[in-house]
């Protein structure tokens, strides 16, 4: 029953001629509390544990904790040591640790300083998988005021006929292909004053870009008769960006949680994403399932979960956007300009982010001038990569 409240909150903020403005009060000193995020997933996914410390609010840094000894145990006597890849990120060997529904897992961490932490035993509850991913066109914001956005809402249906899953969380990774309007295959060499071909691997015509979810997406069917989820919103893809300009892909990861894990994530959501209403709950630090084995007074933040896991990739092409909707390519402001004066050309290229696109050749085949465009209109690599992802068809 948590759902209706944020709506009321939103409403009355506006109703009351309210205003919200950025504000940065003086906060206390950072405390560098240990943070452990760990998960064992159903199937062949590697178990992953991230260990870091809290930093000051607003800081751009992350304080990773390296060279810890990280072990996951199961209730069948198995013990799996995780190895550190990136600093502070520890992964299991998928050939040894395979998350299995019904098995219980426990995380044990010993930091380089010799402090040890342990999670409670977590049972892995399997998932029956994602049933269906579909879309709906939607308008959000306000068209009268002019801040509305039309886009495609990606929706998910799933069901567990045995009514066991009940607590769900999703993450997504989106990847989209886009192209610049004025690709360039030559660059201007000011020493020789001639155009030089760009090697094919550096061409910036078609690129791919990815983004990973950062929000918390949760739901439960605990109050429902049957374990059915219909039209669960996963991602809103605005037609104003270039995501749907060619081809779009969304990888949806579905996690099935225990009730305890669900409450943990729910409170994380409440105090990180849903604040700002008239009826805000009083924030508190969500109580995780990891404890110091040395002393109950040593603080530690985080959760170690064993989650049922399924993933599904969703594809959408530009042609699939319903008729009558304008899809932006993201380059509406790009123009191709002609320059006929060398000094103009030099200054535009050197000082105004313009890039040589092509030469203008007169009727008689003589060199007349330069075609230039803003750099981001000519090279998609400025926003993504021109290396096609492995999964891309």
């Amino acid at each position, binding site marked *: 029953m948590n759902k209706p409240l944020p709506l009321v909150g939103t409403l009355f903020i506006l109703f009351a001629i309210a205003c*919200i403005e950025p504000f940065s009060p003086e906060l206390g000193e950072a405390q560098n509390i240990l943070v452990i995020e760990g998960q064992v997933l159903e199937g062949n996914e590697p178990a992953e544990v991230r260990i870091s410390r809290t930093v000051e609010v607003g800081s751009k840094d992350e304080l990773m904790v390296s060279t810890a000894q990280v072990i996951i145990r199961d209730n069948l006597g198995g013990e799996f040591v995780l190895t550190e890849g990136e600093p502070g990120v520890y992964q299991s060997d998928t050939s040894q640790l395979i998350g299995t529904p019904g098995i219980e897992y426990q995380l044990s961490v010993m930091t380089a300083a010799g402090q040890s932490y342990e999670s409670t035993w977590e049972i892995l509850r399997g998932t029956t998988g994602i049933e269906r991913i579909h879309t709906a066109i939607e308008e959000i914001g306000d068209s009268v005021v002019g801040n509305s956005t039309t886009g495609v809402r990606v929706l998910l249906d799933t069901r567990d006929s045995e009514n066991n899953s009940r607590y769900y969380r999703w993450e997504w990774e989106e990847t989209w292909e886009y192209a610049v309007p004025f690709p360039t295959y030559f660059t201007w060499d000011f020493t020789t004053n001639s155009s030089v071909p760009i090697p094919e691997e550096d061409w910036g015509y078609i690129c791919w870009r990815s983004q990973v979810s950062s929000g918390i997406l949760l739901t439960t069917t605990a109050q429902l008769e049957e374990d059915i989820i219909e039209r669960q919103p996963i991602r809103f893809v605005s037609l104003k960006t270039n995501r749907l300009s060619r081809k779009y892909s969304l990888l949806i990861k579905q996690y099935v949680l225990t009730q305890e894990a669900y409450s943990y994530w729910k409170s994380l959501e409440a105090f990180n994403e849903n604040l700002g209403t008239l009826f805000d709950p*009083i924030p*508190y630090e969500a109580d995780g399932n990891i404890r110091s084995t040395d002393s109950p007074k040593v603080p530690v933040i985080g959760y170690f979960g064993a989650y049922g896991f399924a993933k599904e990739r969703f594809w959408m092409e530009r042609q699939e956007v319903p008729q009558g909707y304008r899809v932006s390519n993201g380059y509406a402001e790009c123009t191709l300009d002609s320059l006929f004066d060398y000094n103009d050309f030099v200054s535009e290229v050197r000082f105004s982010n313009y890039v040589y696109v092509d030469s203008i050749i007169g009727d008689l085949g003589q060199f007349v001038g330069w075609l230039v465009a803003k750099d981001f209109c000519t090279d998609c690599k400025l926003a993504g990569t021109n290396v096609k992802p492995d999964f891309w068809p």
Partner: protein
Amino acid sequence: MSRNLLLSWIFGMCLALPIRAQVDELTIRKDYHDSYFVPFVQEIEAQYSVRFFYVPAWVDSLQINQPANPTTLGQILDSSLNQVDLYWHADDAGNIILAPYELENNLPVYTETARVLPRRLAATRPTQSSVNTNKAPPATAKKETLKIGVAGGSEVGTATLSGTIRDVQNTEVLIGASVVVEAMKAGVSTDHYGYYSLTLPTGLHELTFRSYGMEEQKVTVQLNGSGKLDRNMTYAIRELDEVMIEAERDQNIAGTQMGLSRLDIGTLKALPAFMGEIDVIKAALMLPGVQSVGEGASGFNVRGGSADQNLILINQAPVFNPSHVFGFFSVFNPDLVKSFDLYKSGIPAQFGGRISSVLDIAMKDGNKNKLAGSGGISPVTGRLTVEGPLLGNQNSFIIGARSTYSDWILKRLPGPDLRNSSGGFYDVNAKVNFQLSENDRLDIAAYHSRDRFRFNGDTSYVYRNLNGSVSWKHLFNDQLYGVFSGVISQYNFEIESDEPLSELAAFQLDYAIDYKEAKADFTYIPDVRHQIKLGTNQILYSLRPGEIRPVGQTSEIVREELETEKAWEGSVYFSEEYDVNNRLKIYAGLRYSYYLMYGAQTVYQYADGQPKEESFIVDSTVYNPGEAIRFYHGPEWRFLARYGLSEKSAVKGSLTRMRQYLHMLSNTTSISPTDTWKLSDTHIRPQVADQVSLGYYHNFRQNSIEASAEIYYKWLHDIIEFKNGADLLLNPYIETDIINAKGRAYGVELLVRKERGKLNGWISYTWSRTEVQVNGEFPEERVNEGRFFPANFDLPHNFSFVGNLKLNRRLSFSSNFIYTTGRPITYPVGQYQFGGGTRLYYSFRNQFRIPDYYRWDLSVNIEGNHKIKKLAHSSWSCSIFNVLGRRNPYSVYFVGNSRGIQGYKLSVFGQAITTVTYNFKF
């Protein structure tokens, strides 16, 4: 005196020729013995073609004694009116006019605009009372000598004088008016029915009648025996609502009561109103010791108590949700409110059930003389009230309604979400009162309020209050009366959600509370030095803590209903107020309250030595309907003492214990629309508060300026706190989320107020602290490691100013200013990456404060012209709320996203809000 009577009197006067001959010639042959004047007059009027004009109060104790000798009417009048210093006049039309002075034979010359008023109504200034009784009373005070009882009667020694004090204009009884015998330093004030009873030695006394906004009256009484003396008082300044704080001027230093604030509707109306809605609770927030967590927050906090610890009564019935639109407006229609009393300490023994304060709202009585109405329109609501006599002029009714009149505000807000929303509220009050006999009065009152809101066509909220009361007041004799009341109060809310995306989760959720109460209260006044009250009340509660059910064919929501909670709460009390001597007065009261929760109910038992959690349930007991589950009881003492230091100053002290068996469950900073109430049960103990307070009171300038300083310390036991992450709605194991915590509150309240004159108002400053300790046995039952931390409404510095300047009878300005320390808030003290995003690390609760709050409001009230004959009297009021446009923070919060963390400040009112309200009376 009604206007009709007044007009005919004037009319009669214009035609009058002093022909007494006719009346002198009327021969009366009947025997009158101890016959009261009014029946006598009625009889005479029925027999002869004469009509009498008089004010009943002048003659109510007058008796006619006339043996059956033939005599003239004139002689009877001469001899009997002489006893009460009245004169009579007659014209040749048969009109007989009584007056307290000789009427002129020649008409005075009036200018065109001058109003012809009898002298007793024409005083233009409130009189200044004299503290020094050796001084002659001010010339404007009215003097009369009345004889009460038969001279040389059987009552020797003392006699009791009692009666009702009313407003002459609308027959409204005056609450808290005082009747003082200054020479004896004795006095009483009227109760809720405007009734007083004063026992005095027989003999000659000078009585002073005072009521705020009313012209003071001095009456010399020759008290021969017990009798009645009703008084009608007139507005000191006619036609304009007098603007002043209503609290007995003398009471500030002469009475024992402390920690009491009384505001009358005149004061409320003069205060700048938010969106044009005059608001009882917002006005209370201007008083010392009363605070709120923020704008738009429902409820208020009194001396460190949470919002549910205030007993809010209208017509004796409790109101469970005092706000409209979730907190922006209060549910009391200003047109029907007469006054309110807010008790902060030394709460009289007849009140109980909440541990912080009692807000007792008195509703107006209907006008007994004529049908009248009033109304108004503001940007938010329209109001209409009608009142008048009912079945003769001893009884009256009043009914008033207020409603939002359209969704137009919503329709003008940005966002399709808001334009597709709808909402509104209304409230209706009605009251009838019957004067069944001289000694019996019956009041029936009902109240209903309803709010609805539908957000963007998918989630709707409805909540309503419904209450009613019947009370019968009976005078057993001049010294003893009783009030017998029956009260019901109901509150419920419903949330209905048709999920826009999926019909699977469409649901409806209901919550309801039902309250029934019967009570009897007796007041016994044996003599002028004692007042004894005793009584009992019995309450039955029935709470439906929640039911959720599916809506529509496709909904998959599982119907779930929590068991109904039932309980019986009762109390008996006794109190005595005793004037030990001229300096010392004491009040001692004892209330004993008891509480029984009974079945049917399932009660869970939790393992010993383990935290109360669902997983530690070891057993459950099923109680049958009516079977006793848990019994709580305890004494609640109320002691007050006043010691007069001089004529102008006094010290007072009080010691109060209160108990509370019904608690609100709310783990948000301010009350949210889905907060519910919960009864004490096996696991949740009643809340108890002890308070000591001490005050010094000083009046300056002939009582026109009052100053007071009060300090208090409060111990709060077993107050309701919640574990982190408590789930309060539809939780069958609610006790696992509730902790009985401890609290302490202390502070100093300073107040200076000027009640009279062109410029009036008050300045108050409060310094106070409120701290809570949640220190359970287990780590999850502790907050901030079990240390005391500031409560959400701990606002140490609080300054308020209320000023009202009356330029002339038609134009007045009001201004108020309020400053408080920012409320405590929990800020993050670190951040970390988790689940792909930046998350915040919160550590201790309420360790920071949001920026300070201040607000300045202004209003102008313009009255229409004061011609007597016009269709309706109208007034305009224009108010500017938050003149400075200050964006006072309501909360500060942080949101993490992929780019990092950003702090935001939420201000409920980001700008000045100007509203114009039109009011009318007919």
